[in-house]
């Protein structure tokens, strides 16, 4: 019997026993073609997907290598059907090629005529293709390059893209490593992106995704468009770039609701790009305002639908997507991969934590029991009201107070969904509150005060979910969330994961009402983190150490 660390299941999942002595080698060997699905404490689950296998092909691995790897590390006999399937799936990649033709521009060509015929007859690609040049090639409308690739992927005949990228307008950018240096995984991530051309880098919150973006820019040496979620985040990007690279303030422009500057490096918000007036997008010209050599998508899991469409037109430019959690509640992960590019780098959160780059976190779920009167109200309420009722119970306020008291000198964030509840909490705890209506200026002030330690307790709404860098936060208390959103949960935990100066672990509390929809949603939200190895302890409110 082969004593390997890997168990290959017939449903195409791979189970990796991580306590095994060969586990590390095995992980390295399967990472190029298998998607990491879950990484709890003992056994990591990977999955073989067509997309993953095609990406492996794109990166130069062939089916034989994949099969050999599976056989070499597998503990039991590998199901024969699965090996056949791997070989067949991988053989589908590259039958179609997107190429630059000296006279006709972009063409789709094939070495396998029946495949080309099948594709030409498909409804999905109608209108994307032009004149048939000969038996084996057909003209592609340049604007449809992205859509076509997406459509071909759905048809199961992914095209290999040899058309290359435009270099864009050259602009010197280099990293200035004074007093800090690029971490190994950041360098790996930037390089595997650069070699792949375009793609998505998945790193946990606090692991320095901005730096990966900067490193990518240093590779590109070209004008760059950075798309971010909001204005505060745009300012953070700007500060970080000025600090870490040779770029000066004047070279970096902000393109948002308030300011509209176009500079060699321009940071724009998704909001302003997707602003719609009289049926058209007035700020879309930004995308063509310069000959961008690189486009950076921050928090790519939040990419709004109109941006997908715009991105489809940008296939000739290099694109990098950054995210911590590529789970989209709308299930459009596939679109992200086909439009921005495949996942180029991914590391389990716990791995980065063990290297000391992100802080360990202690996750606790505290369950409160609704008092009888509230339960009665809850029971008779309309279904759509129930979540709010359960989330906003007064019981939670009491528990928040207890927890805040238990961490007296640690900077604490209280995060919630419902403004009424936040206002009430802020009044109760005597702390400032940041919500949607708070001005950008006021937000900046409060965040700065929090960073400097002036304020030790901040109540925030979901505006602080993303991209807000609060390195000093050590305790977060979540009182309510957007129903069952897994990525929100991960992002909120991410606020705490900047390494602490003394190596202390962060504390993440979630307060839920027992036996209500609140508890059910909490379970769904926690699943992602549990699968990343962040196990929740569950406590009853009564058992909280006072």
């Amino acid at each position: 019997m082969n004593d390997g660390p890997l168990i290959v299941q017939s449903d195409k999942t791979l189970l990796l026993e991580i306590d095994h002595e060969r586990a590390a080698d095995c992980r390295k060997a399967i990472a190029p073609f298998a998607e990491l699905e879950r990484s709890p404490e003992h056994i990591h689950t990977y999955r073989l997907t067509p997309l993953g296998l095609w990406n492996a092909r794109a990166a130069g691995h062939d089916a034989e290598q994949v099969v050999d790897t599976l056989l070499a590390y597998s503990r039991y006999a590998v199901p024969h059907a699965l090996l056949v399937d791997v070989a067949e799936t991988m053989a589908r990649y590259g039958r179609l090629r997107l190429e630059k033709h000296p006279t006709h521009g972009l063409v789709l060509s094939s070495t396998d005529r029946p495949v080309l015929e099948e594709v030409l007859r498909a409804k999905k690609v109608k209108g994307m293709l032009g004149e048939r040049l000969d038996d084996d090639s057909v003209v592609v409308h340049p604007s449809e390059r992205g859509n076509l690739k997406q459509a071909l992927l759905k048809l199961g005949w992914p095209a290999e893209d040899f058309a290359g990228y435009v270099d864009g307008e050259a602009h010197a950018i280099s990293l200035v490593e004074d007093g800090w240096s690029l971490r190994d995984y950041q360098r790996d991530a930037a390089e595997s992106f650069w070699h792949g051309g375009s793609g998505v880098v998945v790193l946990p919150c606090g692991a320095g995704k901005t730096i990966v973006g900067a490193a990518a820019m240093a590779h590109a040496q070209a004008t760059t468009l950075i798309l971010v979620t909001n204005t505060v985040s745009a300012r953070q990007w700007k500060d970080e770039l000025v600090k870490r690279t040779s770029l000066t303030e004047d070279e970096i422009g902000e393109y948002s609701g308030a300011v509209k500057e176009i500079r060699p490096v321009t940071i724009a918000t998704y909001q302003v790009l997707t602003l719609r007036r009289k049926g058209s997008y007035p700020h879309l010209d930004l995308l063509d305002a310069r000959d961008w050599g690189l486009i950076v998508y921050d928090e790519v899991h939040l990419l709004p639908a109109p941006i997908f469409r715009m991105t489809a037109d940008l296939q000739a430019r290099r694109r990098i997507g950054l995210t911590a959690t590529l789970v989209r509640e709308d299930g459009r992960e596939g679109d992200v991969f086909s439009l921005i590019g495949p996942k180029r780098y991914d590391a389990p959160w716990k791995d980065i934590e063990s290297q000391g780059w992100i802080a360990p976190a202690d996750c606790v779920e505290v369950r409160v029991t609704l008092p009888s009167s509230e339960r009665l109200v809850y029971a008779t309420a309309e279904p759509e009201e129930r979540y709010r009722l359960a989330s906003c119970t007064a019981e939670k306020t009491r528990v928040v107070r207890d927890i805040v008291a238990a961490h007296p000198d640690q900077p604490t964030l209280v995060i919630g969904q419902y403004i009424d509840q936040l206002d009430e909490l802020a009044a109760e705890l005597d702390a400032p509150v940041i919500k949607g209506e708070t001005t950008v200026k006021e937000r900046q002030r409060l965040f700065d005060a929090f960073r400097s330690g002036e304020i030790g307790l901040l109540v925030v709404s979901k505006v602080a979910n993303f991209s807000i860098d609060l390195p000093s936060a050590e305790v977060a208390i979540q009182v309510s969330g957007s129903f069952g959103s897994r990525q929100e949960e991960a992002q909120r935990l991410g606020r705490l994961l900047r390494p602490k100066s003394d190596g202390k672990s962060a504390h993440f509390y979630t307060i839920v009402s027992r036996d209500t929809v609140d508890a059910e949603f909490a379970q769904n939200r926690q699943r992602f983190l549990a699968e990343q190895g962040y196990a929740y302890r569950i406590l009853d409110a009564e058992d909280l150490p006072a």
Partner: protein
Amino acid sequence: MSGRSPLPSGFRSLADQLRSWPDARLSRLLAARPDLASPVPHDSSQLASRAAVRSSLLRALDQLDLLELTVLDALVVLGHTTPERLAEVVNADDVAVAAALARLGDLALVWESPAGLRPLTGVADALGSGPGTSGLQPCSAEPPSAAQVDKRLAELSDPARALLEHVAEHGGEATTGTSRHLVSPADARTPAEELLARRLLVPRGGGVVVLPGEVGLALRGGHTTREAVGTPPALLTSERAGELVDRAAAGTAFEAVRRVELLLDHWSTHPPTALRTGGLGVRDLRATALLLHVDEPTAALVVEVSYAAGLLATAADADGNPAWVPTDAFDLWIATSPAERWATLVRAWLGSSRLPGLVGRRDNAGKTWNALAPELSGTHVVETRRAALEELAALPRDRVLATGTGAPSLVARLAWLRPRRPRTRADLVAWTLEEAAALGVTALGGVPGPARLLLEGRDPAATLTTLMPEPVDHVLLQADLTAVAPGPLESSLARRLSLVADVESRGGATTYRFTPGSVRRALDTGWGAGELHEFLASVSRTPVPQPLTYLVDDTARTFGTIRVGHAEAFLRADDETALAELLHHPRAASLGLRRIAPTVLISDTPIDVLLPRLRDLGAAPVVEAPDGTVRVSRPDLLRARTPKEHRRSAGASAARATATVAAVVTAIRSGDRAADARPTGAAAAPLTPSGSLAALREAVETRSSVLIGYVDNHGTSTERVVDPISVEGGQLTAHDHRSDDVRTFAVHRISVVRPIED
């Protein structure tokens, strides 16, 4: 028997020869041709006449290989002859021919007459122009010597020779049309006339000419066939380490056993309906394939093998409709070790005439074949399957069937061994190879050790057990509320675990997920929270994660808060708010709940409807028995009775078969003694239908005249002397001496057949 040359005197008839046989040899005949023994024949004459009946002959011929058929055909061509002459004529070495002849003798297809070896009457007819025949006509009664024939051939003109060869290759028969029958070759104007003149073609009447056997032999270099037929074609093989074959097969075998277990476990609670025609619906098959993570042909195989092993049968489901349900034999099967379970399945598969390979295809009428359909079986399946596997098992270890070319070579070899099997053989062999690979009877084209033992009739369990993945007795519990068993779980543990947690992924390992629902299911079947904790702690190698402990406690806490009465369908709970919650639940309106006391609700909905609805609403009700105790509910596992044929052991039926053969031999012997004691002299009246048919066939072959008693259309009985020409389809075609004409007679109207001594 090669050493046993025919007695110079020979025997008067086959019956005489049978009488002279020792009991052991007679038993061998009855074992090889079991149809002769039932019903038990009266005496040797009846046995002999029954051996010549066409249907029995066809069965016997079907068992012959190409060499044996060729020898038999040569004997038909030569007529009476000696073993030596036969060995000359058959294109194979003498030892092989002698062995083939011995077997033909044992099967009573050939007997020793005073004039030499003779094929049994009717053999020529039964052979027809089927596989293994040379297509030569019988030799003339007084054949010219070989040298004479050669001389005549040498003198032929080229067109005549070409014509002759054409006739020889196309059945040795032709019509001549207007050709004149001349005496001198010199007068011949056409090749046909030349051949007739040289007596290389002989007129048979009605414008038909035949090519006598001796001429055909001369054309083929003195043999009945041009190609050598002595040895079967070899299999095309390649090299593969035996260990690798064993390991791969053991993995597959384990998987096959697990699939059957999984399927039948599932069908214990969710039986699929049986179609009115008895099969399994296409949709159910698709669901099975999905459940087992296999393609539909493999799913069909799993279903069919379960059925063949007697683990699956139809029974009435809860609503009284016929459904496919595991039998009680399944419970016994599940209690044995995986290796024994595998052996049971494979033995059943080897002995099953079912054709899973047809499932999903369309029959001639365009109807799709359903799995488990009663008519989904074939006559030669068992024999072909076994023959194919035995050929593979006969390969040395480390040799396996070559990929690509191997399967056709196997088909060719089987075609030599059983030439008279139908054309579907190639399909059957292909299915056998596919099915064997799916069951772990073969792997990588080779037969692994355990399967070899099984084919030899020995017990493979001990060998297989050492090869199968070791069962593990623990799981790894993880904080994301999953449990992973890093290998095949011990069966009892797997069952208990699948009660407490839902299976997420299967294969070499199994992933389970704990949910409030799954824990509640365990509580429903009578587990307590304490027991659950103990169970989890005992099966886990790692500490039980806190969220899991909490989940169990939390579910146990809410479990049974609400108790549902049986008699009046009441809902009572000490917790008033729980009732209020239920009462005001928007989806509970249809349940007709009404509050009758602070802690009691009543409902006008029957309990069986009410209970699942309440669970849907998120409550965890418990049914209360009239005496106030809590009733636990567990879905009943359905069982059907094991079909009769599976309740008998193989050993018993073998013993029964042996006993039967012995009894038949005894009966025949006593019949013979009775016949001997009968006063002789009375006209031999072969009046049994098979007797008169045999006599007529014999007359056809020996071209002798017989006296027949015939009852005509008007019921008048006459006696006629006729020269029989052929017996076919219940009609005798014969030359009637009285009318001097060729006439046909209905065989069933012939009352007497008596040979005429010339």
